[in-house]
């Protein structure tokens, strides 16, 4: 018979793990960048590495009818790139799918 109270349990294990996972502030940054001419690019940085970004990008490409890739960045981890200004689309999609809470989203740009 084991005494439950004496089990070693680290209540902060979760916190430590997640702070290692997200390099930054735990926010998901959605940014826009101008390319040549009128073209733009949307980047999504800070998605949890527990998610399969490749699957996400595949779904988004289909949903928003745009091209997209996943880029590996040494500091920011895997970053989603989508063609065009998909900021509204991606925010809606991420919250609707439950991957990101609305308060975690930080949208940048003009």
């Amino acid at each position, binding site marked *: 018979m084991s005494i439950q109270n004496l089990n070693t349990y680290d209540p902060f294990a979760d916190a430590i793990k997640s702070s290692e996972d997200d390099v930054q502030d735990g926010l998901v940054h959605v940014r826009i*960048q*101008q390319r040549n001419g009128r073209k733009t690019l949307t*980047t999504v940085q800070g998605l949890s590495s527990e998610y399969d970004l490749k699957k996400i990008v595949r779904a988004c490409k289909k949903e928003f009818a745009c091209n997209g890739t996943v*880029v590996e960045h040494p500091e*920011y981890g895997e*970053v989603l790139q989508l063609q065009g200004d998909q900021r509204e689309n991606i925010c809606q999609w991420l919250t609707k799918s439950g991957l990101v809470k609305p308060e975690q989203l930080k949208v940048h740009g*003009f």
Partner: protein
Amino acid sequence: MDDDMVFDPSLKKKKKKKTGFDIDAALAGEQGESTSVEAPAGTGDVDLPEDDNLDLDNFGKKKKKKKKGVFNMEELESTLPETPPAEEPEQQEDEVIDDLDLDIDFSKTKKKKKKKNIEELVLEDDKGEDQENVEDVSGDLWSGTDRDYTYDELLERVFDIMREKNPSMVSGKKQKFIMRPPQVVRIGTKKTSFANFTEICKTLHRQPKHLLDFLLAELGTSGSVDGNSQLIIKGRFQQKQIENVLRRYIKEYVTCHTCRSPDTILQKDTRLFFLQCETCGSRCSVASIKSGFQAVTGKRAAIRAKTA
């Protein structure tokens, strides 16, 4: 330059106009009395884009003031009737019903009943308000009696005390920045000039470097201040877009997060920036400016040449 000449950074996408909240109304009344000094310019500054003409008229005045070196940053909102008098909403409802009568052929008797009901309601409402008003005037109703005070009474009391002792803080809720809009001009096809960048920094009492960092990080581009103290940004941006970014800057780094007063100081303290309010004394840390991930957008050939 196309739309509103007076750029009001605290504008929140045209909402918030029709909230008939009594506390606001009360405050608006008080402001009118307390802010008569700054009032002349304030009357037209009802900050919605539709008010083009008014704003344009005022613009001249502003300019003059600025030349004298008086920055009119904290302009209190005018006392123009933002909140309609108490009876109006009910009247509107009546009108709506009338419209329906005209448009759709419902059985009229029903409508009339409804109307009556509403009128009755109005009457009742009026009575209710009257009673409340009586309570307001007499103040602490529970003093001298055995009964407990109600939450509403307490709330009313604390607001009265606040208003009485600190009119500027209560009205601080409605303080607005009025500053000149950013002058944004395209240079060629690939660059944009933000001509009055330095001037705006001065108006906001912020280091140009700080605003520059924020602008460039938000726009995801590069740029620098040239010899004529204008900011040259890579990429094509419209005035509207720059305005949006400025608005966000002001919200995060200029106006106090507690009382929204623009009378603040930005201090750097061990890698973090703190916003110290001169009005209410609150001090809070603000987000550090990070440009974050930047995608490579140049020509592929150039990238290949670099990496190879």
